[in-house]
């Protein structure tokens, strides 16, 4: 997909900061972007995906100076020779829209591809960019099939949850051709009644409302429009909750182009003028059927006596077989780790053994210790005798005693686990020490915590005060 680069796209990766919803997994040293998924930072999945498509000029936006430092250090260590990555620090809690506002001056290309740094997916960004360009849209969003388990579900995850009803991430309305986004409800709105604008329905005649799609937070924006909106609507905080719904809602009475005239942005107003002029002739020249936007823009009588300003909001719907998930909750962290060493292991970048697992050559296993399929054991980790590991990820340089059971859990780096421990459905952060006979079920243990011998916890979050 070389075209993506040739098409004058600038890529912004929003890597977040210390996400509160991920406490105790995140810490001062480990911002959200560096949380390990199958033993490498989650941010690497996005960057690799972009790199594969030859998008090598990236701006990574991180909330908070400390977090920016950590991310910057990691990137320069990993990608120094291959990519040109700029890390920009923005204040904390400015929201995704605020983050873009803060780096406004760095945005120069015609279109901007905004990707969330917590995205783990295998959908080519070039496809989103191409859809965006084909329709000359102001925004194109990537939609993917919502995972089987809902966003708020907690507790042990696994195959038994698959039967559950799909969670409601977004309420999305599409036109019959499934190319245009007509309505989107995100966040708290999802739980409310669905309100669809009649004017849009009138223009498009028929729309399909779906609850089984998820906004993956990968957007292509027209730069001039994005900057306009961010500057004019100072209260907008979030791309997903504010900017995108705003653009979708105003698509048939666009406020963008008219405002573009006033804005001193170079060429922006000219663009608008040209667009308005070109439209009818484009229609004639184009053999393809015009979209409802274009018809609507021509006015009801088909003449251009009254020109209406419209803009297009497009979607690219990922194939159902594609994997797509966002690491934005503890549950998602566990799920994604499970999936990347399990069903979606092509994403991990490792080659899996015949037993369908990855055990680093330097890892040492005691006698009668078994590591089941869909597991990963990092380099330098040691395990005692008679241990059993199922559907879990174990990081680097861990020391695990004998008779330890690890099931459906994520164990990060440099962890000491005493004899006879049992860990199920839990996440153990780096440098944690579990003394003998600790039993953990559905727990999260924050970095550096010490769990005393013989203690038993269920569904708790343990962290240093």
């Amino acid at each position, binding site marked *: 997909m070389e075209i993506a680069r040739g098409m004058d796209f600038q890529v912004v990766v929003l890597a977040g900061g210390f996400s509160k919803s991920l406490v105790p997994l995140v810490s001062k040293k480990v911002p959200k972007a560096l949380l390990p998924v199958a033993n490498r930072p989650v941010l690497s999945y996005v960057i690799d995906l972009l790199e594969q498509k030859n998008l090598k000029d990236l701006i990574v936006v991180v909330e908070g100076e400390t977090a920016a430092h950590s991310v910057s250090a990691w990137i320069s260590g990993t990608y120094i020779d291959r990519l040109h990555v700029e890390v920009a620090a923005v204040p904390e809690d400015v929201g995704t829209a605020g983050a873009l506002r803060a780096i406004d001056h760095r945005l120069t290309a015609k279109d901007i591809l905004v990707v969330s740094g917590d995205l783990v997916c295998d959908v080519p960004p070039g496809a989103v960019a191409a859809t965006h360009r084909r329709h000359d849209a102001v925004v194109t969003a990537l939609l993917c099939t919502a995972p089987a388990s809902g966003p708020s579900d907690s507790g042990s995850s696994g195959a038994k949850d698959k039967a559950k009803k799909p969670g409601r991430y977004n309420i999305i309305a599409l036109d019959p051709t499934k190319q245009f986004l007509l309505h989107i409800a995100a966040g708290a709105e999802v739980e409310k009644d669905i309100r669809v604008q*009649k004017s849009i329905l009138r223009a498009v005649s028929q729309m399909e409302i779906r609850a089984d799609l998820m906004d993956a937070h990968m957007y292509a924006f027209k730069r001039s429009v994005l900057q306009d909106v961010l500057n004019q609507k100072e209260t907008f905080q979030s791309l997903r909750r504010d900017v995108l719904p705003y653009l979708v809602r105003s698509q048939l009475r666009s406020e963008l182009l008219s405002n573009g005239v006033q804005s001193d942005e170079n060429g922006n107003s000219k663009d608008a003028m040209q667009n308005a002029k070109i439209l009818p002739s484009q229609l004639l020249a184009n053999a393809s059927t015009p979209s409802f936007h274009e018809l609507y823009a021509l006015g009801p009588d088909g003449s251009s006596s009254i020109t209406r300003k419209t803009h297009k909001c497009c979607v690219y719907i990922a194939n159902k077989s594609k994997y797509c998930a966002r690491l934005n909750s503890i549950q998602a962290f566990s799920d994604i780790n499970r999936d990347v060493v399990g069903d979606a292991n092509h994403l991990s970048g490792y080659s899996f053994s015949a037993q369908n697992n990855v055990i680093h050559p330097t890892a040492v296993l005691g006698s009668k210790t078994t590591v089941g399929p869909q597991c990963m054991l990092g380099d330098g980790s040691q395990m005692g005798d008679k241990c059993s590991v199922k559907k879990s990820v174990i990081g680097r340089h861990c020391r695990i005693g004998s008779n330890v059971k690890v099931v459906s859990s994520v164990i990060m780096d440099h962890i000491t686990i005493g004899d006879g421990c049992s860990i199920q459905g839990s996440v153990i952060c780096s440098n944690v020490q579990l003394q003998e006979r600790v039993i953990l079920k559905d727990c999260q243990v924050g970095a550096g915590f010490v769990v005393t011998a013989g203690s038993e916890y269920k569904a708790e979050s343990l962290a240093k005060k």
Partner: protein
Amino acid sequence: MVAKKGGNRGEDAEDELKREPLQAILLADSFATKFRPITLERPKVLLPLVNVPMIDYTLAWLESAGVEEVFVFCCAHSKQVIDYLKNSKWFGQPNFAVSTIESHDSISAGDALRLIYERHVINGDFILVTGDTVSNMPLIQALKEHKERRRKDNNAVMTIVIKQSKPSSITNQSRLGTEELFMAIDPGTKQLLYYEDKADDRKGTISLDKGLLMDNASISLHNDKQDCYIDICSPEVLSLFTDNFDYQHLRRHFVKGLLVDDIMGYKIFTHEIHASYAARIDNYRSYDTISKDIIQRWTYPLVPDVQFFGNCASKLERRGMYRASEVGLSRSAQIGPFTVIGNGTSIGSNTEISDSVVGEDCVIGSNVSIEGCYIWNNVTIENGCKLRHAIVCDGVIMKSGAVLEPGAVLSFKVVVGQQFIVPAYSKVSLLQQPVIKDSDEELEYDDNSSGIIGIPSISSTPEKLNDQFGTKLSDSQRRAGSEVGDGGVGFIWSLGEGGHEEEWRHSVAPIPADKLIEIIRTATDELEISNQDGNFLPPSGELEPDSVDNDSDEDARDDYSYFEKEVEATFLRAVHENVKEDHIILEVNALRLSYNLTSTDCASALFYSMMKLASDTPHDTPGELVKNVATVITKWKQLLKDYLSSIDEEIEVILKFEELCLESTKEYTPLFVQVLHLLYDQDVIQEKAILDWASEKEEAEESDKLFLKQAEKFIQWLNEASEEED
């Protein structure tokens, strides 16, 4: 006889179909007033549509679609309908039994179905149509789907037939002149989930219940479908109408009632037809549209040159012109395309007719120009008349040189005087327009429930009508004459208020171009205005929370104002009837609980009531007003203090007083400080509350500081006093 369409009924249908004869209910009364004044004299179903009474189309279709038993429900002009059917060939057909059910007091489809339920004549699934339906759709498929759904789910009580039809983007009405329709349908099961037919222009959004998406992964929203008003119903539908005795309208009450009722879980499904025709004559515009569809053969085999019951043979000629066998046509007359000329009509020289229907035994003179008109039987049009997009009923005489402007309707036997110009959209009848009182009632019905006829004269039998008519004619003729020119007979009905809007929308005349431009203009203006106001598009990104919040805010405000009124009433009762304070407190507390408000609200409502009482007590000067306030407060301060448990509530009272001064009782505006001082002296409001209020207001906008400035000195004094105390 019409050839049977859609295959042989017995072949692929279920056994059930064979066992039970397929029944249909035909409502020969639309319970609407849209065809007035014509329907004052003849029931709508007997009005000719391309020279054949409407009911014949419906019956011919039902017969061809395999219905075996039809119950014709007659109400308005029931005698005429029954007489017509008796003299027609419909009675005594083999395999097609037509019987009538007569009612004199039904005012809606709901009443009709309740009456039919009582008769116990329906014993299985049935087709429900009105007598103004024109269709050629086969029923087998829809019926089969309905029965299959029924077998799986006993709650699937109704299947409604829909058809693709995009309403105009300018007028938002369909080509049949009906309001645009918004529907939500489950794309998999075709279940109807939402139905909105009367567009409320103010509401720019459709609100779908969030529960809908819980059960369905996706929903299709449609603005491009037309309701054909052909329903396949289970017998439960009749009992549902009986259970819900307030259901009147089939759609507005029954369908919507079932959709919102999630207790019983009754379901309605849709059946979309593609190739076949189905439409209902709802208003003059659909009369025009459907007539043209018939002439252009969309309704085949129900077309003029195929003989079915009720029409007489005519021959299709070039350019879509149908001519009956005996037409006296002058050589120089030009009969344009898509025109039907009935039997026994004679047309003079140099007369031009296009896109029109002319009935039987009409006499049309020379140099007459007729375009897009519907001329019924026995009409005389003298030389030099000009008719544009009008309906001319039986027996009308147009004297020479008379002109009908677009949209005019001449009811039975009207005479238009020489050279008289009947203005556009006017309706002329020999009967006088019903008095205003009636029409008000009617309008109300029209808006709220469907346009139910509530006027006795409509349902009166034709004999009675003729009596009235006969006696009135002589004296009314003279008076009426002047309204339609020299030698004319008839009253021009005045259009109701706001009627003009409706007239052009629902007339047979095409919508004039300037009207269209006007609509576009206003629509654009509205858009701009709403954009400026930001009403339509709230500045924040999320539409929903904003609007929902607004809604709930409004609700809360509404609730509060009701609450305030009730508290006031309670308080006034206390004042006038000497109710004990304890009792008032009990009552106010009860109100507080029932409105789910806080004691702060009670305090401000009570304070409001007291100030209102004071200002309502007669007074001449502001000084007297202050005295009034003092009296009231002194007497009732204990009551008020009962609700002032903390400083916050006292501040609330001050804020309420500000609001009062600004909005409802401006009299208090100059007295703000005096009253505040009074409240302080009476220990109703503490010093701290006033100071807190003042500091809170410090940060407010300049415009908001009006009262703060007034009270400046008082606050200063308070400050100094407190300092001294320290």
